[in-house]
């Protein structure tokens, strides 16, 4: 690996991004009717922009690595990403959210919920939940980029994380939050091409589609004994039903992320910024293709890395990556791909990190400043520009610190925890806000709170993967988890917490005061 060439490629990429950002900014500034002019966006630009926001380094590095361990069963997450994350999200959530958000003059997800239920309390609580929980997700996205840098330069992880964080922070602070369409489009295109090429070359290296799959199927005898006992039956086979491996794959990895995507604050905001329902209709087509390639291809490659490493070194992918799931994809790219592709993939990860993190930092910054502080201290006159900037800088610093502290093999788990908390806290309320007129303000407050409390309880006292290292359960009750019966210590906290939140929402709604017809008419004005 030529460090100078890679450095040069990265610098050129950053200059192009800066130029496109400046061009987009100056164009919109010079045109008086920029809002109108900006309404006509080329579908290709829009397509790639959506893709860049959706797919992060977490999906590529974290979940690609998970496929290296769990195998092709992870393709179910692709199915959910397309069906739930694109089709259902855009058609059934996006259209109503867009119209209702505009009716209620909402500009953040907490503000949307707060205005829908006429409750500053809901806005404050939601802002706090997002600001507290999202740094974990931002941290694992940072780790995704850092692991690749660590692998290709063979440098210390902390140094790699520092390097990646500096680039991302500089981009965000220099104006990346504005999410100029053209920079997003370039980033989405690089990601799409990289992942497309990655699958093609992988099949080519392994002798074709069928040969590669057959080789992976034939590796079943190499499944380590402890994994066999847990339910692992090979990398082209779904885990044994009702085994520990099955529960982990279905609830922790597939369901948590596949369903949790519906209540992602940074994606909900995206619905409101869409110009019209026509754009949402077009995005369904384009988003479906992008997600199919981006996730389906990397998950397939992730599983197939086992064949490559077995052929080359006699090891499984996870063994070659020294037990760190997050290093499987970086090690594979570094070992199997041509040098020029390593440069391209570096740009793909920078793109994935920049586009996703900018929307995350935007969500965290507005949650702290606009949704929390401005409503907790309504009588104080804040300089909102300073408050927003400070909030974002705080969010960046916290995320980077968490990134340094987290252990290996954390990217997919960290993502799933955040998605799970969002699903339990917000999804029932968000769905009811759009489709159930009987839902009440009091019920919304209690549903969000019960979802958060149930999630925290399940994480701290039931789900062994978190409760054991946290140690609170051990300190209070003398055992690592309160869940003694299988499979409760393995099931994802969301599977426990979301039903709690749903039951509370329905039960409290039935016994509390309805929202006024006048306010409902305002919310649903123009909603078709």
């Amino acid at each position, binding site marked *: 690996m030529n460090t100078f060439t890679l450095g040069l490629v990265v610098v050129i990429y950053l200059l192009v991004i800066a130029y496109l950002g400046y061009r987009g900014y100056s164009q919109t500034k010079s045109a008086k009717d920029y*809002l109108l002019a900006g309404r006509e966006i080329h579908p290709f630009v829009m397509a790639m922009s959506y893709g860049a926001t959706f797919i992060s380094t977490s999906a590529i590095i974290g979940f690609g690595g998970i496929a290296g361990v769990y*195998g*092709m*069963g992870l*393709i*179910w997450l*692709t*199915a959910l990403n*397309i*069906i739930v994350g*694109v*089709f259902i999200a855009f*058609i059934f959530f996006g259209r109503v959210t867009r119209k209702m*958000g*505009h*009716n209620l*003059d909402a*500009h953040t997800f907490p503000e949307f919920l707060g205005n829908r239920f006429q409750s500053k309390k809901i806005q404050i609580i939601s802002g706090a939940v997002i600001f507290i929980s999202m740094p974990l997700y931002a941290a694992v996205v940072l780790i995704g980029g850092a692991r690749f840098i660590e692998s290709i330069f063979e440098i210390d992880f902390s140094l790699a994380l520092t390097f990646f964080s500096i680039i991302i922070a500089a981009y965000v602070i220099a104006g990346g*939050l*504005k999410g100029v369409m053209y920079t997003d489009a370039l980033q989405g295109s690089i990601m799409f091409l990289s992942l497309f090429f990655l699958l093609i070359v992988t099949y080519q290296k392994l002798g074709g*589609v*069928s*040969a*590669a*799959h057959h*080789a*992976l*199927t034939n590796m079943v005898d190499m499944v380590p004994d402890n994994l066999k006992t847990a339910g692992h039956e*090979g990398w*082209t*086979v*779904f885990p044994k039903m009702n085994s520990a491996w099955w529960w982990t794959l279905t609830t922790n990895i597939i369901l948590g992320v596949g369903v949790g995507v519906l209540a992602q604050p940074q994606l909900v905001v995206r619905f*409101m*910024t869409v*110009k*019209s*329902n*026509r754009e*949402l*209709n*077009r*995005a*369904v*087509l*384009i*988003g*479906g*293709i992008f997600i*199919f390639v981006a996730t*389906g291809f990397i998950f397939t490659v992730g599983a197939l890395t086992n064949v490559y490493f077995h052929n080359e070194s006699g090891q499984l992918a996870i063994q070659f990556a020294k037990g760190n799931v997050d290093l499987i994809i970086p090690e594979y790219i570094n070992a199997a791909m041509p040098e020029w592709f390593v440069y391209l993939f570096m740009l793909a990860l920078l793109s994935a990190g920049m586009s996703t993190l900018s929307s995350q930092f*935007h969500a965290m*910054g*507005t949650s702290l400043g*606009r949704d929390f502080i401005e409503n907790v201290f309504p009588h104080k006159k804040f300089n*909102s*520009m300073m408050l*927003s*900037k400070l909030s*974002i800088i705080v969010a960046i610093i916290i995320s980077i610190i968490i990134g340094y502290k987290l252990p290996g093999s954390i990217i997919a788990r960290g993502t799933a925890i955040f998605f799970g908390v969002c699903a339990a806290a917000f999804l029932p309320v968000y769905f009811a806000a759009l489709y159930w007129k009987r839902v009440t303000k009091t019920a919304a407050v209690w549903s969000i709170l019960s979802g958060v409390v149930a999630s925290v309880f399940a994480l701290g006292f039931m789900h062994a993967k978190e409760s054991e290292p946290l140690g609170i359960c051990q300190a209070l009750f003398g055992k690592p988890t309160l869940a003694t019966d299988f499979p409760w210590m393995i099931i994802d906290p969301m599977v426990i917490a979301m039903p709690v939140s749903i039951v509370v929402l329905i039960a409290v709604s039935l016994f509390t005061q309805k929202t006024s017809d006048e306010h409902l008419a305002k919310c649903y004005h*123009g909603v078709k």
Partner: protein
Amino acid sequence: MLGINDPGVLLGYLLSIAGLIACVVYGVLNWNKGMETSTEEIQRDLDWEEKDEHIKEDI
């Protein structure tokens, strides 16, 4: 099929492809539908976008 024999994994791939086809078909059929036609609605959207721009400018 193509070296994969497990129905669980095959079903995952089939669902992904079915989802992809559904997205493409929906997108094609509705490619030009959904534009706002009412002046009042367009103005409301423009007002919202203008305010959103100001909020982003603050950041």
